[in-house]
């Protein structure tokens, strides 16, 4: 009989090893999935994981890694704060949209003024505030009414999507767009563009994501607040006795993740996406949940996980165009990655023992 025995301390080896094993398990599952879809499994995997990095056109794909990785890392970092403390913000997609809308509104209001020193910072602040405010709704409801923040933050994603549609077709529509939905192109408006070096995929979102990684690292390694967050997640009673205010923690975690998601949305809409359109958001807010767990809720881990997940997006596009692999296959692949990670994670906290005979 196989039994699980709780480890006195989480295993160091498995806390690093689990994500790596999970990636391999997912690759094996992916190969089987692609074979079932009638694709050559090894070739499909190499298209996803090898081609964008070392293939013939890698000069084109590598900048994409920054573009797709930055929002994932920024959002996942914010989420990881809450996840550590047992506060589940799963509405980052909504905060991302609202951040983009608020920032874009500021940028469009300034159009066509030429003052990059003013417009872009104002947009960044508006984006952060927008995401912050949207995340405060579940935060305040949780603190005041003890409402479940999982469901409220998620419901607000769909409200945000409706708002985005209303804006893209209404108030923010490009007056010179000949009736097409979507706003003016912010990435072509010099003062509002978030691009630093478009050829290499550098934009302010990348810079901010990297700064956020450093700050999050310091927060958890050196700051009392980081310790309180971890404590509240692992031992809520102990945290309460030591004077950690749960309400403050909820608002802090949700606020930071909302602001980061808002900034990610703004830098996306004024850079890679360019316009506020009905579907400029592609679900980074949800994929970031996978990134946060795959990165073990650790800032540096999230950085690596974000790069890996960005790679699956790009590789998925490559495989889609060259092999005709359906887009949904990549979604299944990403879901499987989270499943296998969560499953293998049991080894971090438990030891597998094989016991003979009956157990009383």
């Amino acid at each position, binding site marked *: 009989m196989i039994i699980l025995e709780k480890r006195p301390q989480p295993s160091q080896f498995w806390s690093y090893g689990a994500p790596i094993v999970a990636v391999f398990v997912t690759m094996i599952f992916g190969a089987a999935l692609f074979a079932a879809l009638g694709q050559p499994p090894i070739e499909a995997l190499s298209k996803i994981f090898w081609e964008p990095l070392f293939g013939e056109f890698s000069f084109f794909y590598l900048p994409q890694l920054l573009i797709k990785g930055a929002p994932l890392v920024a959002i996942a970092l914010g989420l990881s704060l809450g996840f550590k403390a047992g506060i589940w913000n799963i509405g980052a997609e909504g905060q991302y949209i609202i951040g983009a809308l608020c920032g874009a509104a500021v940028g469009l209001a300034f159009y066509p003024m030429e003052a990059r020193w003013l417009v872009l910072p104002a947009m960044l602040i508006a984006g952060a505030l927008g995401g912050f405010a949207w995340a405060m709704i579940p935060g305040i409801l949780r603190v005041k009414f003890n*409402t479940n923040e999982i469901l409220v933050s998620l419901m607000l994603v769909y409200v945000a999507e409706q708002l985005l549609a209303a804006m893209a077709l209404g108030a923010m529509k490009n007056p010179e767009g000949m009736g097409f939905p979507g706003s003016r192109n912010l990435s072509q408006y010099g003062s509002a563009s978030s691009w630093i070096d478009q050829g290499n995929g550098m934009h302010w979102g990348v810079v901010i994501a990297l700064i956020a990684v450093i700050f999050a690292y310091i927060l958890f390694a050196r700051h009392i607040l980081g310790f309180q967050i971890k404590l509240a997640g692992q031992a809520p009673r102990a945290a309460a006795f030591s004077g950690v205010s749960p309400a403050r923690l909820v608002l802090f975690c949700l606020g930071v993740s909302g602001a980061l998601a808002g900034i990610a949305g703004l830098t996306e809409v004024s850079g890679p996406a360019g316009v506020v359109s009905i579907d400029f958001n592609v679900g980074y807010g949800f994929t970031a*949940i996978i990134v946060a767990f795959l990165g073990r809720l650790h800032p540096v881990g999230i950085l690596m996980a974000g790069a890996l997940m960005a790679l699956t997006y790009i590789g998925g596009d490559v495989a889609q165009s060259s092999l005709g692999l359906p887009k949904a296959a990549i979604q299944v692949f990403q879901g499987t990655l989270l499943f296998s990670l969560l499953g293998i994670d049991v080894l971090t906290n438990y030891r597998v023992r094989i016991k003979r005979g009956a157990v009383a």
Partner: protein
Amino acid sequence: MFGSIDPQLLLASLMVAATPIMLAAIGELVVERAGVLNLGVEGMMITGSVIGFIAAIKTGNPWIGFAAAALGGAALSLLFGVLTQFLLSNQVATGLALTLFGLGLAALLGQGYLGVKAPVFPDWHIPLLGDIPIIGPIVFQHDPMVYLGLGIVAGVWWFLKKSRAGLVLRAVGENHEAAHALGYNVIRVRMLAIMFGGACAGLGGAYLSIVRVPTYAAGLTAEMGWIALAIVVFAGWKPGRLLLGAYLFGGVTALQLNLQAAGLSLLDVLTIVALVAAVVVVSVGFIQNRAFTAKMLWWAASLCIAAAFFSFYKWLGWVFNETLWLSSSPYIATIFVLVIMSSGGAPGSLGKSFHASR
């Protein structure tokens, strides 16, 4: 006042609109009463909708479609069950993974079926009862799944309230340590509950693709799985109130579609709804308490203020995006409901992993 909206048709469509949410919610209610929080309802529902649809198309028989959807939902929930019960993974994270995975899986499976029509699933015209004027067409002329859904809710109510097995399930959900100490197999009870929840979610999804829509389209469940989770909270984990919640949401959905079609002003409707709610609060409160309590007068006053605000806003003629508010109404309504109903009553061990140490 109600223009082209036929109240009889509205009430009839309410019963149909409520059925998928009701099915998914009653499954999740059992799961949560066993102490497990499965956030993968949406994923199981949409997978059920695809599997059920494909099976119904291939065989030409909607019943086989429903059976396949229930099996598919249960199979998917098994994945969640193994991870959370045997590998002790975090239930919130695993549920989210199940939803993300299910959405992808459904999109993958449904590729060749976009826009295909489902085989006809005829309505029942229940003899005698169906011939009652007014009530007959509203209540007794629907398809069999509407009644099966009601039957499942009634069955769950009986099971939880009256049967011994239901008592064990509740014990496991309230305090798994104690249930384990009494010799009940916590993991087995929970696995069965999880699979029941999966089967119900699958049925709910299949009801959408086979009866309600009835074609296959991407993103067909439209977050109903999540709303079902909210309804379980609204219901305070009680089957009776779950029925009420599902019909309320069915009403919001049906009304929203009808309003969009009839072109009625949402602000007018909100004014009326707020006033009616105020009257209901006062009268129900008075009947229950035999007196006017401060709390209920406070509620009625705020509802009247809200009604005044809506009509004042309309009178001012300010910008009001009708489509935006109508299409987000189910989500905003869900948030409202969660705020009002977050009084507690959740099973004691909800969301906690169980590991029988020693």
